[in-house]
């Protein structure tokens, strides 16, 4: 179970290959996957009796037609990027963090709790506290799974997933027993104090300032994984655990730390959703960010550099999906199938590309 999970796209190509050929070989699977996924889904949509052209036009253009659509896309991009990074960082060591949902919800609950209890504090004090509460509780939540994995060898896929189901009840308890707000109409906590709300950039409608934090996190992750000793240990432990261990890298410890860091990013996503979008913790606020984060991480092949780019594409599809459901009538679930198909076809094109490469050389 320890073989490298994804093909390493950073590996230098044969020296004889021209850059143009290399670029083509890198891009070709993506183009193929996108075209095939949309083609297959198009057949399904048409077979259901909907207008394919109109459906796809809505999906692709909603984000760019209005300022509101674009803002919504950027707002969605923030948790998607953070959860995807929270998935890919442990993935670099060959560990699967399927607990982004739980880490987000626990982070959101803690952030909302701090924002409610210390509602009177000024922004300069309260906002950092709220974000910190989210990050720490996300890290602790993933830390439970990391501890069970490091100490008792409990499979992290299972422990992180099971903690998701526990987190639903943590939020439910906070939203119905501790800080309940009966006026909200849904199960939700009270609103956080004004000092806990993230400033809005640009607009109206504008994007909350959490987007800057997410950009920063993505940049830092890229630099750390590619340019530092810690990042090297992370990649070495994932690529060949035995070789890494022989060379003095404590693989198990690296894996535990990677999982905790992944959890911290999930918690951060939760805090930013509270401070920037909802102003409170709401049941169901996790949407399907977990699935999407994993899909993004896998499509980006674990690369921190590409995660934000892929996340932007997925955010466009997601914002387009709800618009498509409203105007064309195609259920929004269709988009989840398109996304899953992109991933599946990407995996298949890798196989084809691999066979072609072998034939050429």
């Amino acid at each position: 179970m320890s073989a490298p999970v994804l093909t390493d796209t950073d590996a230098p190509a044969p020296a004889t290959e021209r850059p143009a050929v290399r670029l083509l070989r890198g891009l070709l699977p993506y183009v193929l996957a996108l075209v095939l996924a949309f083609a297959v889904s198009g057949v399904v949509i048409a077979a259901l009796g909907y207008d394919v052209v109109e459906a796809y036009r809505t999906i692709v253009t909603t984000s760019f037609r209005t300022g509101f659509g674009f803002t919504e896309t950027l707002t969605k991009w923030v948790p998607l990027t953070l959860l995807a990074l929270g998935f890919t960082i442990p993935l670099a060591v060959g560990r699967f963090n399927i607990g982004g949902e739980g880490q987000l919800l626990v982070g959101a609950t803690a952030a909302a709790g701090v924002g409610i209890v210390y509602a009177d504090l000024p922004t300069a004090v309260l906002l950092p506290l709220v974000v910190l509460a989210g990050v720490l509780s996300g890290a602790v939540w993933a830390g439970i799974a990391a501890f069970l994995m490091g100490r008792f060898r409990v499979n992290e896929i299972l422990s992180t997933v099971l903690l998701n189901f526990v987190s639903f009840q943590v939020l439910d308890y906070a939203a119905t027993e501790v800080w309940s707000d009966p006026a909200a109409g849904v199960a939700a906590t009270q609103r956080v104090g004004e000092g806990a709300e993230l400033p809005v950039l640009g607009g109206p409608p504008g994007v909350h300032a959490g987007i800057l934090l997410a950009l920063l996190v993505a940049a830092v992750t890229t630099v750390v994984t590619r340019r530092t000793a810690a990042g090297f240990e992370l990649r070495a432990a994932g690529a060949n655990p035995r070789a890494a261990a022989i060379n003095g890298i404590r693989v198990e410890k690296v894996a535990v730390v990677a999982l905790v860091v992944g959890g911290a990013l999930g918690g951060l996503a939760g805090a930013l959703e509270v401070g920037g979008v909802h102003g409170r913790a709401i049941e169901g606020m996790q949407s399907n960010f977990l699935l999407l984060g994993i899909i993004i991480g896998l499509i980006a092949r674990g690369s921190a550099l590409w995660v934000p780019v892929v996340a932007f594409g997925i955010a466009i599809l997601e914002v387009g999906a709800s618009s498509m459901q409203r105007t064309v009538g195609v259920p929004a679930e269709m988009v989840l199938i398109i996304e899953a198909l992109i991933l599946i076809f990407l995996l298949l094109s890798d196989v084809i590309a691999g066979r072609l490469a072998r034939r050429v050389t």
Partner: protein
Amino acid sequence: MTEFAALAQLTVVAMVPYLLASLGTMLGGLTGVFSVSQEGVMLLGAAIGFLVSYGTGSTTIGILLAAGTGAVFGAALGWATTVLRLDQFVVGLALFFAATGLAGLLYRIVIGQGATTPRVDTLPRLEIPLLSDVPVLGTALFSHNVLVYLAALLAVAAWFFLYRTRAGLDLRSVGENPKAADSLGIPVVRNRLWTATVGGALMAVAGAYLPLVYTGTYTDSIVGGRGWLAIALTFFGGWRPQFIVLGALFFAAMDVVALRAEVAGIDIPSQVLLVVPYVATLLVMVFAFRWAKVPEFLGRNYDRESRTA
């Protein structure tokens, strides 16, 4: 005593989805194909089982079509990881997403997006003559829907096949040491393909059980983590049918206890009761991963031409 019989009966009813999904996981895993798409395949099985029963009025057709769909997903996992040798977890996750999306999509297409939730008739009880008249045991064991009996038979059959027949031994050798199995002429890929396929079918039937026995309705959250719990249960049961049955009983008992405590109005926050199965599973896994013997090649692909594996 009747109270106990009623609880025991509920436990047996609640045990079936765990048992079926876990047996499906075990079957694929014994040849080395580790599925992580249970949660999605179960949801898809639930959707198809519900929708087909709703459309045709026949629960049997619903269950059979659900099984067929699950078999397709299992076969896809088997094909992608043997013929194409793609990473098992990545393919499993991709199939999980596809199945989840498909389940929601099918329901929305057939039923629409309105607020009404249609119902189907749940499976009737089949009281086994004479045996069901035995006090306590009769109620607990012999007055159930047909799937309960089938699941029990299946567990026994699986045990007999795997541990008392030559083909079963061959099958297990594929998951322990495919290279050795291959050198003895045991078809590695064929074994992996059929176990993954049947495994997928069992998971989907486990899912179809939920609307067709429990609720009579479908919701997107109907599986509620049972697919993931089934994986934990398979480890807990040491990948052996006889222990998986015991594990499934334990998981089901926790479900029933949590439910009963809530109904009885015991003064504990309901949230605490609802997390009991998940927390207990986490604790159990601490021990399960120590003693459980996992198939040596679980989750790893076999390449006949490779010299290292």
